[in-house]
């Protein structure tokens, strides 16, 4: 029997029972579409998070006070150990590492910000102009704390786009006085609006010199030291330097955590990658369910067409030919269903993009290819039993329709 004829016979049978064919197509299609939709959800979440981390800047190394590693230490010790403050002196010392290109200390708090009778509680960041360069923030107006360093403060501040409209409305903000907590400062610049970043909502922030922030919050401790390594390769070196230098200054105690952007990125990448795979796997189960359905329907098809099978045998069909016919039919059901599912899945994902445009939904290629393969494999695998049952029919009984 020629392949084309086999396909024609199998296709003819599918057309002959449209209701059955439609149900099978639907079952497989839903399975495939589910794989596409779920994996594109996971993939969108992964991309969202990694993009966010990438938007923090390049070659970032971040120093956080306190230890996060519980490296087999005695739990009692962990509690007893109060982390030493991270200070500006620590920051200055780390800046001496040859692998550090830029460095910015960061203090974070909240304060009431007011102008005239307008008053709002707003996040306040204390830092240096280096921070803007590391974070690659753009200015809408003015400058980012000119002439401010780790040592030198100034009665200046930079405000986010939303703070500007809320406090100044349409008035020109540059050079205007603003009260931040118990201090007065002039607005030296306005940040360009940006999407929400992982750590800070750039639009709703007031930035003041780091020493002024320390005074404002009455604490010498830094929230973070953010540094930029000289190159991607230098990141682990800068990380090691920061650890070593701070440990030396803290009497040999490693009481800070130093993370690299790469490490965080790859952690999140891994978490979300696994999540996406898991979602895809769960959805793939529905493909197996569809496969079982195909098997049942093919068994029904075999019993509906016993007389036909008997006839084919009487006409000289071999076992292999009968198996090929029914397997082809099952495969067609699965493959067609998978194609419909791809269309359906891509359609749903496109609709999701329209209705929820913050996340960029795109079904991953591996999921589409995988779903297609699994669907077709299920079709064949679950087609084997019915096909063999047909091939094993006794022709005489089959011809009598039994």
């Amino acid at each position, binding site marked *: 029997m020629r392949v084309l004829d086999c396909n024609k016979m199998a296709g003819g049978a599918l057309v002959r029972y449209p209701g059955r064919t439609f149900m099978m197509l639907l079952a497989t299609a839903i399975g495939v579409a589910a794989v596409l939709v779920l994996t594109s959800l996971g993939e969108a979440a992964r991309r969202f998070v990694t993009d966010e981390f990438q938007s923090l800047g390049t070659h970032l190394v971040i120093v956080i006070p306190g230890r996060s590693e519980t490296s087999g230490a005695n739990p009692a010790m962990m509690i007893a150990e109060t982390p030493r403050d991270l200070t500006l002196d620590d920051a200055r010392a780390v800046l001496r590492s040859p692998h550090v290109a830029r460095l910015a200390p960061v203090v974070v708090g909240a304060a009431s910000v007011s102008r005239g009778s307008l008053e709002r509680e707003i996040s306040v960041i204390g830092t240096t102009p280096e921070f803007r360069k590391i974070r690659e923030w753009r200015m809408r107006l003015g400058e980012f704390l000119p002439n401010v360093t780790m040592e030198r403060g100034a009665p200046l501040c930079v405000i986010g786009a939303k703070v500007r409209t809320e406090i100044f409305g349409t008035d020109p903000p540059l050079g205007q006085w603003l009260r931040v907590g118990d201090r007065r400062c002039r607005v030296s610049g306005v940040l360009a609006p940006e999407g929400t970043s992982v750590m800070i909502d750039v639009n709703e922030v007031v930035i003041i010199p780091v020493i002024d922030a320390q005074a404002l919050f009455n604490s010498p401790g830094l929230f973070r030291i953010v540094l930029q390594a000289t190159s991607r390769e230098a990141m682990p070196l800068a990380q090691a330097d920061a650890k070593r230098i701070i440990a030396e200054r803290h009497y040999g105690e490693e009481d800070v955590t130093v993370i690299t952007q790469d490490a965080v990125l790859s952690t999140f990448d891994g978490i979300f990658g696994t999540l996406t795979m898991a979602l895809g796997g769960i959805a793939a189960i529905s493909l197996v369910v569809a496969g079982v359905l195909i098997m049942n329907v093919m068994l029904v098809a075999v019993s509906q067409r016993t007389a036909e099978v008997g006839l*084919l045998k*009487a006409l*000289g069909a071999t076992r292999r*030919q009968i198996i090929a016919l029914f397997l082809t039919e099952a495969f067609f059901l699965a493959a067609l269903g998978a194609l419909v599912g791809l269309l359906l899945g891509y359609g749903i994902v496109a609709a999701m993009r329209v209705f929820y445009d913050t996340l960029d939904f795109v079904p991953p290629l591996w999921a589409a290819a995988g779903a297609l393969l699994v669907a077709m494999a299920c079709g064949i695998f679950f087609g084997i039993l019915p096909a063999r049952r047909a091939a094993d029919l006794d022709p005489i009984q089959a011809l009598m329709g039994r």
Partner: protein
Amino acid sequence: MIQLQELCRDFDVGEEVVHALDHVSLKLPAGEYVSIMGPSGSGKSTLLNILGLLDTPTSGSYTLDGVNTSQMDDNELASIRQNKIGFVFQSFHLVPRLSALENVELPMMLSGNDPKLRRERGHAALERVGLGHRDSHRPSQLSGGERQRVAIARAIVMEPKLLLADEPTGNLDSASGREVVKIMEALNAQGLTLLVVTHDPNIGERARRQLKFKDGRLEHDSGVPA
């Protein structure tokens, strides 16, 4: 050329054993026209199924064209069914979703013949049964007699040597039945060995050689005509 020797076919029905064929010995030269008659349950269909290699005897031997069929494996049996034997059934057994021509082409399709050749020979076979104008009709659009003629066309499209018909007129009115028999007789006249199982004595008597079965035994053989 068919030779049966002490052929038995037993069926186990619960405790009992039914001797559907009981020590049947028979020689049928090529080109014969044989009718097989006998009461219901006498083993006529069982014999035809064994002759058509759809069933195997419990004991005894069946030699077809000098080859003992008990030696053959499944694929060889299928190949002989395909090339040497044509079947005509009481209930036609046409595939409803295929046209008359496609039904006739079916055996050639299974044997992997080229579609063009298939169409030619399929059409020629339909013409031989007087249905050259019915190529594209579905079985449901044909009368009973026409359906059986399509089935005959299908049985002969591979140019077999042996045509086995199990009550081919059983579902037909007498006029269409006669027509079907005439067509088969014409094929026999061209050299095809023809075996017809029938309950209708008018049809049975037309055969040159008549076999009568009872309880699985060959009770009467009119013998090879001179």
